């Protein structure tokens, strides 16, 4: 045990030196996922037949296949058609595109859970559908989506470790490098596991605070 503590104190700084990369991937992926997810959800909710079909296919494909394969497809595959990306960018895009599929479903579910009367009331005071969506439905839907969205954000934080497989020097890669140097593979992966548990714990707490701050008085989720 004291051996491990000594090991941890020695190598934790190296692992944490990759924290900005991990967090950077995470934040960018969430932003991409939220933007694209909102578009996809709108497409599935209000789009014509073709928009609906395209958005649905996108969601099903990204939810039905592994992130690792998606990442390989983007990083190793796209250069075949002339799109060359560095590992970091490829990972951000892969995680972002994947996350968009999930976030779209959460948004869609949240919008659909809002009582019909809200849209009717907005139209009744003269709003267009788009105005009603923007000013009345979305502000309510976004609040409702926060609990699921928090789970998704935590999942994505863990997904960033998959970028290890295409050579992004995030925390897991750093850990592996330490492993090769010290041959204490187990200890170093245990250490990185602990870092993730703490990190996901902190994020969960922060999102929980956000959830409470944004709740509408008197409205139960």
């Amino acid at each position: 045990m004291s051996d491990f503590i000594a090991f941890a104190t020695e190598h934790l700084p190296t692992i944490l030196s990759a924290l900005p990369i991990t967090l950077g991937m995470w934040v960018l992926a969430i932003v991409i996922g939220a933007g694209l997810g909102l578009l996809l959800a709108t497409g599935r909710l209000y789009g014509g037949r073709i928009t609906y079909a395209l958005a649905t296919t996108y969601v099903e494909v990204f939810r039905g296949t592994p992130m690792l394969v998606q990442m390989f497809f983007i990083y190793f595959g796209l250069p075949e058609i002339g799109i060359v990306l560095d590992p970091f960018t490829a990972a951000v895009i892969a995680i972002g595109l994947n996350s968009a599929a999930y976030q779209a479903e959460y948004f869609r579910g949240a919008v659909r859970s809002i009582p019909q009367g809200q849209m009717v009331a907005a139209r009744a005071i003269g709003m267009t559908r788009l105005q009603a969506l923007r000013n009345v439905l979305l502000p309510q839907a976004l609040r409702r989506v926060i609990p699921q969205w928090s789970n998704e954000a935590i999942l994505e934080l863990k997904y960033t470790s998959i970028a290890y497989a295409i050579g992004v020097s995030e925390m897991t890669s750093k850990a592996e490098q330490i492993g090769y140097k010290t041959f204490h593979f187990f200890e170093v992966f245990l250490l990185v596991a602990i870092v993730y548990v703490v990190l996901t714990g902190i994020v969960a707490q922060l999102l929980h605070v956000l959830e409470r701050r944004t709740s509408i008085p008197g409205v139960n989720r």
Partner: protein
Amino acid sequence: MIVEIIINHIPYLLDGLWVAIQLLVCLLAIGFVFGLLLALAEVYGHWTLRASGMAFERVFRGIPELVLILMCFYGVGNWYPIEPFPAAVLALGLRSTAYQSQIFRGVIQAVPKGQIAAARAIGMSGVQAVRYVVLPQALRQVPGPWSNEFSSELKATSLAYVIGVVELTRQGRYIISSTQGNILIVFAVVALMYFVVNWLGNRVLYRAERALEIPGLERRESD
């Protein structure tokens, strides 16, 4: 040309798919057995069991699958030579235990309290009440939430790639290196295979959910 390459290599991909499915079945079975035991301990056990069960769930849900796989492979390897496949089963099985215990806990707690009271009132022991009354009702509710778990574990099997399990994704990489290219198409076929298995699995679970419905009881929302 490309079509020919793909057709020639389909058997390898199917081999890889078969390994992925074996991995999936093993890890889900481990998760089922231990997840159920853990859930029962949490619901009916002493509060210390509940607390440690919750801590287990929290920890194993907080560790990325990939890190868990590496940790189990090297961790067990420290004491005992372990092949990549069982290491992956162990890692993902532990993770699945954490997720499935949450599912089981939910469905067990959803069984109305009066059901146990009624079973006890005709003279059943606590264990009999759980076995004959609570579990038959709770387990019927499992296929719905279980389809999420099935999907996410199927996709997680691809991560066994990183410790050298020759599953579907790795077979894809092998074909790409041996044919020097065709990256997009090979990964597309690999993705399609995962997609089909996922789709089939979810259909089976949906059918099971329907078949297990109790007549007259409103179907509970499954997500």
